[in-house]
């Protein structure tokens, strides 16, 4: 039944709205609301001696100014540490407004509310904050080596330290395996800091209803249920009196998953205090210094291997730059250290990380969430082994791949959800074969020779990854068929462009046997579904998709039961097609799903002619049973939750051919190829789009984007002029191929696809540039200026 829509490149149902200017993003709402703006610290580390707001009070249109001192205790206290972990011994979070000390440029110090944003910014400019600057620490190594303390009570700046040890099958620990290995290598790798950088910043709009003492909040968030619970707790409101809605969201990529942001507490609080609608729409300059960054890591690698390139022991130590706070716990370094293993069977593994505070913007997951770093580490290691042994890089990978017969494959570690890291399915050798074929790996030598004859320098690179997707704990789906025959689907997680309104409708329409255009989908609205986790970790299709499918199956079962009674048939003989339930092989016997919906809700009152069918004299029913049988509910609707046992593991392999300019050191990607396995595809068009976008972000991270802090903790490139997100002119055409190994873990056989594209790109490009240049690439991103410097250093060594 699901075959017809499931798997089809159905056009997106979001698009007509978004193409005609009828999208509703946060700042499109709340016309006439008061505007909030924030005074933010210009210092990376300072004590606040005094805040003088008097200058701002003359601004016409000013409504209120708040500093820490003005906040009630509950609102003022530090924001929650969302994901505690035993290893996070010194977790620290910011307060909504700074109390006494600021720890990064951009930390909010005062909030202004005025009639419009122009006036609010005028007022901010007139607030005088007397800072006593303190020495900041920006470099992660300096911080770890006992530089100035970011938090006075965290000496050494180490928030968390975690060692995970996976001995060999024979019980030999990694370091010992390396000692006894025929060959060993040791080296250091670095990945610089970047950021998710959605084109729409964050934003909050809050409306306090004085009459019924309820709060409605719109937030550009990836988790409206999370924001709701946090706000209710902070503001001391009963949960049912708070509703949070994620409207159209202009991209998230992880940054909007953190919650509550200071503004998500302060704006609703101000709306309550003022009894007025208040809105804050983050501007780009704020976003650079007030919204999360990610990626920064130093990696120290030791590896032991045999003559075939098989990894016998791997020992990795990570220094993870966590910025000034740890609201999202240590998920990023956990993901790096666990997903580093990729599609490989590693003899023995030891990984140790330190999460280190610096006086910079906090670090929380950005699309890929630590995986790009882990894959960079593993894939650079594979390339080094190949170079050392003078083997083909794909041969070394092949020698280490987990084989199809080995699933479920237990990596014997604990994943980011606290559950065992067990790969559910995959076919890595086939994936490798496909990517080699797609990029033309085996014929590259000829291409290189031809290019060299023209004075051109080209190189090829490959990168492989495995991505745990669809983590729990759960999502829900609610499906209601109304008496007009329409199907209303809701799920609690939110959407930022993934096409949920389309793919969830495909699932529902397929499961229920109704035309797609009868199905509408709502996401991220706590009025519709109060229980949800959020959109992250490539989990929407897996977890919400499964929940919606299960809810539809409940509805379908009920519909068939009611129809069977009405048609006096056996439910097993019924089929649903195009919204009509028929008795198989009996053309005349049919009932509309709409009618079933009507009959499912016994009525006393006929609000229209159709409803009259369900009233007590029209449908008297069995006098010996109540109108609604025991255990039943009125209406044709169903709710189901899907809680995965474990993550499901998607995988992929990318390859690229690059050209480096011998004179200018410019790097151009000539070809980029992707083989991708996310299990069964619900909508291949949308999956392809996710891959394209991920690869583009990966190219940004590999060649263009870095957060350039100076030693004083000032972000030197906090604008789109200088933080170089690629344009169309910088992104290559991307060639894709799909492999489908269904997941055995969920009812749809799907795996997540949202983050995949970004994960191996830096590793692939590094390998390709290294291949073109014959110079070791151990740091990303790589600019032409960087490559020039590496060439000069290599020339000096020769």
């Amino acid at each position, binding site marked *: 039944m699901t075959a017809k829509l499931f798997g089809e490149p159905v056009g997106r149902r979001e698009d007509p709205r978004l193409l005609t200017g009828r999208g509703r993003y946060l700042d499109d709402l709340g016309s006439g609301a008061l505007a909030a703006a924030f005074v933010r610290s210009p210092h990376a580390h300072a004590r606040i001696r005094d805040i003088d707001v008097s200058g701002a009070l003359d601004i016409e249109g000013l409504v209120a100014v708040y500093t820490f001192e003005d906040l009630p205790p509950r609102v003022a206290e530090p924001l929650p540490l969302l994901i505690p972990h035993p290893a996070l011994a010194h977790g620290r979070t910011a307060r909504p407004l700074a109390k006494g000390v600021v720890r990064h440029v951009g930390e909010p110090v005062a909030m202004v509310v005025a009639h419009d*944003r*122009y006036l609010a*910014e*005028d007022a901010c*400019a007139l607030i005088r904050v007397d800072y006593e600057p303190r020495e900041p620490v920006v470099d992660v190594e300096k911080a770890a080596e006992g530089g100035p303390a970011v938090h006075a009570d965290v000496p050494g700046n180490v928030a968390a330290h975690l060692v995970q040890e996976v001995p060999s099958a024979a019980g030999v620990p990694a370091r010992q395996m390396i000692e006894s290995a025929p060959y060993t290598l040791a080296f250091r790798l670095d990945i610089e800091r970047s950021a998710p950088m959605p084109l729409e910043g964050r934003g909050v709009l809050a409306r306090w209803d004085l009459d019924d003492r309820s709060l409605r909040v719109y937030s550009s968030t990836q988790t409206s249920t999370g924001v709701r619970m946090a706000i209710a707790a902070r503001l001391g409101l009963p949960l049912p009196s708070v509703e949070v809605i994620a409207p159209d969201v202009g991209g998230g990529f992880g940054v909007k998953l953190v919650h509550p942001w200071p503004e998500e507490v302060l704006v609703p609080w101000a709306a309550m205090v003022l009894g007025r609608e208040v809105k804050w729409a983050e*501007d*780009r*300059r704020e976003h650079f210094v007030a919204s999360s960054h990610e990626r920064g890591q130093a990696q120290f690698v030791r590896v032991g291997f045999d003559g075939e390139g098989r990894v016998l022991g791997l020992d990795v130590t990570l220094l993870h730059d966590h910025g000034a706070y740890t609201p999202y716990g240590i998920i990023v370094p956990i993901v790096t250290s666990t997903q580093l293993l990729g599609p490989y069977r590693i003899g023995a593994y030891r990984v140790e990380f330190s999460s280190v505070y610096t006086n910079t913007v906090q670090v929380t997951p950005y699309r890929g969430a630590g995986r790009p770093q882990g894959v960079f580490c593993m894939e650079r290691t594979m390339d080094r082994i190949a170079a050392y042994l003078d083997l083909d890089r794909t041969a070394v990978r092949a020698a280490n791949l987990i084989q199809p017969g080995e699933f479920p494959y237990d990596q014997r570690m604990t994943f980011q959800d606290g559950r065992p890291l067990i790969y559910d399915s995959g076919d890595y050798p086939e994936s490798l074969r496909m990517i080699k074929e797609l990029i033309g790996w085996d014929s590259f030598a000829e291409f290189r020779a031809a290019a060299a004859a023209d004075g051109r320098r080209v190189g090829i690179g490959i990168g492989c990854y495995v991505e745990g997707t669809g983590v729990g704990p759960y999502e829900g789906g609610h499906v209601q068929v109304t008496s007009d025959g329409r199907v209303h689907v809701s799920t609690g997680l939110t959407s930022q462009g993934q096409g949920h309104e389309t793919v969830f409708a495909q699932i529902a329409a397929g499961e229920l046997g109704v035309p797609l255009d009868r199905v509408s989908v709502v996401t991220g609205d706590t009025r519709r579904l109060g229980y949800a986790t959020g959109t992250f970790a490539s989990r929407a299709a897996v977890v919400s998709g499964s929940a919606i499918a299960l809810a539809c199956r409940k509805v379908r079962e009920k519909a068939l039961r009611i129809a069977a009674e009405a048609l006096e048939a056996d439910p097993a003989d019924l089929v649903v097609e195009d919204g009509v339930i028929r008795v198989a092989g009996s053309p005349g016997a049919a009932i509309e799903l709409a009618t079933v919906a009507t009959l499912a809700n016994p009525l006393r009152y006929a609000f229209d002619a159709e409803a009259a069918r369900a009233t007590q004299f029209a449908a008297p029913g069995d006098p010996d049973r109540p109108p609604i049988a025991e255990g039943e509910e009125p209406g044709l609707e169903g709710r189901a939750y899907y809680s995965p046992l474990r993550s499901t593991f998607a995988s992929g392999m990318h390859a690229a051919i690059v050209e480096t300019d011998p*004179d*200018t*050191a*410019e790097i151009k990607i000539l070809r980029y190829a992707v083989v991708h396995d996310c299990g069964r595809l619900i909508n291949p068009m949308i999956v392809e789009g996710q891959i394209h976008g991920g690869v583009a972000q990966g190219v940004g991270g590999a060649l*263009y984007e870095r957060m*350039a802090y100076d030693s004083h903790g000032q972000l*030197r*490139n906090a*604008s789109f*002029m*200088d933080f*170089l997100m*690629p*344009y169309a*002119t*910088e992104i290559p055409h991307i060639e894709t191929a799909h492999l489908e190994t269904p997941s055995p873990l969920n009812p749809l056989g799907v795996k997540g696809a949202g983050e995949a594209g970004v994960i191996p790109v830096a590793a692939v490009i590094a390998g390709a540039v290294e291949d073109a240049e014959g110079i070791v690439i151990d740091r990303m991103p790589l*600019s*032409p*200026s960087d490559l*020039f*410097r590496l060439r*000069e250093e290599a020339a000096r060594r020769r």
Partner: protein
Amino acid sequence: MKPPPFGYRAPREVGQALADIAAVGEDGKVLAGGQSLIPLLNMRLAAPGTVVDINRVAGLDTLTAGPDGVRVGALTRQARVERSEEAAAVQPLLRQALRLVAHPAIRNRGTVVGSLVHADPAAELPAVLAVLDGSVRLASVADGERDVPAREFFTGPLEVAAGPDDLAVSAFFPALPPRTGTAFHEVSRRHGDFALAGVAAVVTMRADLGLEEARVACAGVGPVPIVVDVTAEAGAGDRAAAAHTVRERIEPEDDVHAGAAYRRHLIGVLTERALAEASRRAADA
């Protein structure tokens, strides 16, 4: 990111504009295309007391291409100059450079004169004016009109030889002598970004196709566009020597996008490329 409040004047003819500019003095800013000024205002990095918006001033949106050269009025948008066949015929370097200036939507508003007056050291148009030894015509209530040659006009990063009372009413890009070719080469991080380094080259051949004169102007590697005469080196057929001479003359600095050593290297590469292309074009001219 909203601009701070400012007083606003919108004169409709040049005389009134000059009077307004004189009246507001140091505290005023002239608004033409706004593609450099408005970002600064939105970031509150500039807070003029008064903005004199010249967009309605009659007679400033001129573009005349004559045998002597191309004169571009203060309100003439970059896109119009880029598209003008007449301007390209008289002075092809303008179009060659304008294609590298930001993006089409910016060029639709941004003015040529505005870019010269803004004098970003990495911008293309100042280098064009400098290598051609063009001029900027300033006007003020006190001094009337006067032409300032490029070599005197650019005085430092974002600094030009114009007083607070001056309005730059036009710029003049001289025509090319016979048998002359031009080229603009640059490397930028992304398409449309300011150049990490850029070179505008002008090469004139003699009738016997020997080299008469070769000159380059460099962008992004000093406080102002740096003009270097490389006739001797290029005349001897040694573009590498020309590149060497140019490298010695520039003063590149490190920034978030590139190191000084890279920029110095790059200027040499771009000098050779630009001279080669300009020479080819000169030979074809």
